[in-house]
């Protein structure tokens, strides 16, 4: 009853959906297998997309032709550009989303994508022959054949949920976990380990007193994620979020539950993320703090459900309840469901190639939490890359790999496969050494041409980028040529605390001054506006950023070049590290395990030190 597929994607979360869409849009015949078609693209944790470093990733996904940006834009209930006071590399878009609308939009978009079939069942086994994946076996026992398989199992593999002393199997609360796959993969030679993550309680919004909380509004301008013209809400339609705080009393009540805490009792073995600790972790580790901030986030337009960001916990539900009632605004709160911790299997990602294909089994790909990451954005971009490469493998094309200097996605995958991770991996801008280059405003210019060339990004996208690039060049040229008369600019300059001009100056030079804004300058000097002409607002902004930050961008480029010289030196696949007794034992083991493609990659592996790299260099030759 099944044809042979090019690509089977197992799991329909953020990673799985992107993988299916990408492979299908490139022309693969795709089957998306999920345990429950009602929970496609669930936001299992907070109802938000983007944020610092993550917002950049969503824009990169969009620039490559993924769907996450469009879906987020269509389902947003609030938009904020974070870090606007910092340099442009730091600007990070973030949306608050309607959870149900988000999932529905994803499903609609997938259904509108030709080449994507759906099947609802668990996958209990992989079909592997001679080191190559052949397909999957479903819970009902059907064998479905495919050239490539992408596993995006999220927290479902042997998932165990903990609430106080209760514990039960499951992939999300109220949903069954999946078993069989880990065991089979371990038998095939994979290494697996446990991680944990947690989520806060969901509350009935009708029971809250918002007058006791601080209001947090959205921005006055909605930028969004997608570079395509997507219909977005109007700024005045946005929903507000709210801020409140825990107190010493809250902490005291929480402490009464510590004895039953699965964390402190050692029932949870997996390590959780340090940057997303549970509330009990926070009061334990930072005992001197008498309060912690809580963000009260609405789950959508038409629901009263509330997400209490900052109150992730696995303490007994009655302790959660008693403690939360002491928080200002929560005195009469009613729970929809308690917070919980979940433990799940992951496969340390050093077992992967740059394409996210496993080293062990040909044409088998992993993406998302199965690789030890956390976050919708991190998962989605891996799904996209795995989907692209699953398609390319199925059609015997060259792999598609992004470098650290190309995209946050490149940083993420490079970190994962070289350094591995022993806590859920989340992206930070500080992980990207080239973050002045990897901005949210230029992801399209960085990535769309690559994606278009391999047949994923649409003609429409490419045309927008071409136009933007042309306009930016033209604006930059105008700025370099245009002379500003002192009389025309001095009033504006003094209003900005900038010293007045004594002679004519190029517009570009004025722009280099702090506080001087191109839009305002155009408003002040109509001739400049006329010379620039009718251009897209994004082009104007892009030209301004490039002009203003040119020095820093160049500086970073230089650093990129300095560090990249090792990236060009390829290490042959068959390289025999054991023969190199000059290498330290640890370096030999790590190199054998990871088998880096280039010397640059080798130099980033933990345990391989600079003297090892030098020795390698000498051995390699050309």
């Amino acid at each position, binding site marked *: 009853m099944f044809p042979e597929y090019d690509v089977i994607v197992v799991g329909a979360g953020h990673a799985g959906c992107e993988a299916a869409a990408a492979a299908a849009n490139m022309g693969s015949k795709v089957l998306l297998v999920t345990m429950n078609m009602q929970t496609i693209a669930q936001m299992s944790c*907070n109802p938000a997309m983007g*944020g*610092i*470093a993550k917002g950049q990733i969503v824009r990169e996904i969009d620039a490559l032709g993924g769907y996450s940006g469009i879906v987020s834009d269509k389902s947003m209930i609030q938009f904020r550009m*974070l*870090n606007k*006071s*910092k*340099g442009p*590399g*730091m600007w990070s878009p973030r949306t608050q989303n309607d959870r149900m609308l988000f999932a529905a939009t994803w499903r609609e978009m997938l259904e509108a994508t030709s080449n994507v079939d759906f099947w609802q069942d668990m996958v209990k086994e992989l079909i592997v022959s001679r080191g190559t994946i052949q397909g999957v076996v479903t819970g009902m026992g059907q064998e479905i054949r495919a050239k490539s398989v992408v596993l995006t199992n999220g927290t479902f593999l042997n998932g165990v949920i903990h609430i106080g002393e209760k514990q039960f199997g499951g992939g999300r609360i109220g949903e069954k976990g999946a078993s069989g796959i880990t065991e089979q993969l371990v038998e095939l030679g994979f290494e697996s380990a446990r991680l944990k993550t947690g989520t806060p309680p969901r509350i009935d919004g009708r029971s809250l007193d918002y007058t006791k909380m601080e209001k947090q509004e959205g921005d006055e301008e909605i930028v969004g994620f997608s570079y395509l013209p997507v219909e977005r809400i109007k700024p005045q339609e946005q929903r507000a979020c709210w801020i409140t705080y825990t107190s010493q009393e809250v902490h005291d009540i929480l402490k009464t539950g510590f004895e039953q805490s699965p964390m402190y009792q050692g029932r949870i073995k997996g390590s959780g*993320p*340090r*940057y*997303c*600790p549970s509330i009990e972790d*926070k009061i334990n*580790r*930072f005992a001197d*703090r008498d309060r*912690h*901030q*809580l*963000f009260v986030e609405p789950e959508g337009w038409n629901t009263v459900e509330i997400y209490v*960001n*900052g109150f992730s916990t696995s303490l007994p539900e009655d302790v959660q309840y008693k403690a939360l009632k002491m928080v200002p605004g929560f005195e009469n709160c009613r729970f929809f469901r308690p917070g919980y911790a979940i433990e799940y299997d992951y496969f340390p990602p050093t077992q992967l190639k740059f394409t996210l294909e496993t080293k062990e089994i040909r044409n088998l790909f992993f993406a998302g939490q199965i690789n030890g990451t956390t976050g919708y954005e991190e998962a989605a971009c891996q799904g996209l890359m795995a989907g692209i490469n699953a398609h390319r493998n199925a059609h015997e094309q060259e792999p598609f790999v992004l470098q650290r200097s190309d995209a946050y996605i490149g940083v993420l995958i490079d970190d994962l496969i070289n350094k591995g991770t022993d806590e859920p991996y989340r992206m*930070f*801008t*500080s*992980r990207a*050494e080239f*973050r*002045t280059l990897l901005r949210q405003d230029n992801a399209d210019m960085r990535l769309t041409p690559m994606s278009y060339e391999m047949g994923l990004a649409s003609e429409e996208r490419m045309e927008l980028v071409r136009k933007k690039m042309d306009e930016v060049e033209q604006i930059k040229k105008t700025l370099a040529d245009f002379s500003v008369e002192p009389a025309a600019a001095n009033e504006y300059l003094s209003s900005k605390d900038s010293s007045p001009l004594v002679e004519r100056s190029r517009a570009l030079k004025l722009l280099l001054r*702090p506080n001087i804004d191109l839009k305002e300058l155009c408003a002040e000097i109509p001739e400049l506006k006329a010379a620039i002409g009718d251009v897209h607002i994004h082009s104007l902004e892009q030209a301004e950023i490039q002009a203003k*930050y040119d020095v*820093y961008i160049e*500086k970073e480029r230089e*650093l990129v070049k*300095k*560090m990249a*010289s*090792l990236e060009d*030196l390829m290490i042959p696949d068959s390289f025999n590290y054991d023969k*190199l007794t*000059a290498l330290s034992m640890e370096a030999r083991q790590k190199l054998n395990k990871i088998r880096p493609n280039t010397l640059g990659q080798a*130099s*980033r592996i*933990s345990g391989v*030190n*600079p*003297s090892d*790299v*030098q*020795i390698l*260099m*000498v*051995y*390699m*030759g*050309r």
Partner: protein
Amino acid sequence: MFSINETIVALATPPGEGAIGVIRLSGKDAITIADKIFKGKKLANQATHTLHFGKIVDAEQQNRIVDEVVASLYKGPKSYTGEDIVEISCHGSDYVLQQVIGLCLREGAQMAKPGEFTQRAFLNGKMDLTQAEAVADLIASQSSAAHQAAMHNLRGGFSHELKMMRDQLINFSALIELELDFSQEDVEFADRSQLYALLNDAIEKVAALIQSFHLGNAIKNGIKVAIIGKPNAGKSTLLNALLNEERAIVSDIAGTTRDTIEETLNINGVVFRLIDTAGIREHTSDAIESIGVERSKKAMQEADVVVYLFDVTENSLTDIEEQIMKFESNNIHYILAGNKVDTLGLDITKEKFALLQQMLFISAKDKENIHQLKQTLYDRVVAGELKQEGTIITNARHLAALKDVLFSLNDIRNGMDNSLPGDLIALDIRKCLFHLGTITGEVQVDRDILGAIFGKFCIGK
């Protein structure tokens, strides 16, 4: 980090005094760089595998001649490394060789790392695998030996100091990054004055390390000691007494020594280079002598320490105090030695100069108290004022890296002065850590920075 774009330079012969020393330049700019410092035929226009006589000159010092040399020209790919190579055969003085390498560095060459010429040779396909394996064994042993040597060189805990500085910078970086990656968190951000203090501290430390190179080099190559004094104070006699041999021409006629004379003296294992000078008289009618006087002044300026010798019978306390003022206002380390104590008598001398602390009473002629002078010299260097607080660096590559570190630190400070956003300041911090990493080998920093943040601040909603 290795880069095939850079032109590298290093001493190709063993360090130390020898008849000749060969400096090798390799890379795409080797010939251009050589032409900037080599006065003779323009090397770029010469055929490969040819030798050229000429002078190495310092363009920044009115073309001062550093040495007369022979330059050997090998154009790539027919060379040891496969790149353009210039080998400069100099006279084998450490001083000259250091100067020439310094000029190459100034013109854009990078200090070669151990085995780097061979690495390039290998990367440029000049060797096959069996040859390379043999060389690799050699290089592996060299770099571990080099590592050992570096560790020994790290006097007074250089590595410790760098580690502290790295920790400090990581800490600094963490405070900046906190505002970037965690600006939405409910944590207190560092105030700028705190960051500024941290930064100034680091700048001071790096500057001191760079300063210490001069002394470090002095220790490596010998401490320069100038013996200064008026004509006929007995300088040459003292030199002879120190060396225990008749080296300088000794006579009673003032101004006998017309040239500076250099000798080395080993005191408890530390090498001192003694420079006897012509007596300093402000006015002299003798033209030849006046050249000597110029040289004396120069020797005094270049010396690490000056022994000021004076005739206790001829000089008053005021004369000496005036001289002390001059030394101190010019930041010259000095040792006061009153000579001809035998003529005046020890008791009278002591009384006459009672106000001068730390004055030595010697008789060069009778070799009285010469040992005490030696001990004083040694103490000054090993335990006294010449020794700096903390660490001394001796390695030119470390110096180059530290200069880059200092440059980046100043960039960070400029950025803070101009209220640059944190991410742009962080770029300079990264650069700084990168350069520091070229010494310590720790180039990856993101985990350390995030670790510092998670350890200190309560992050996470």
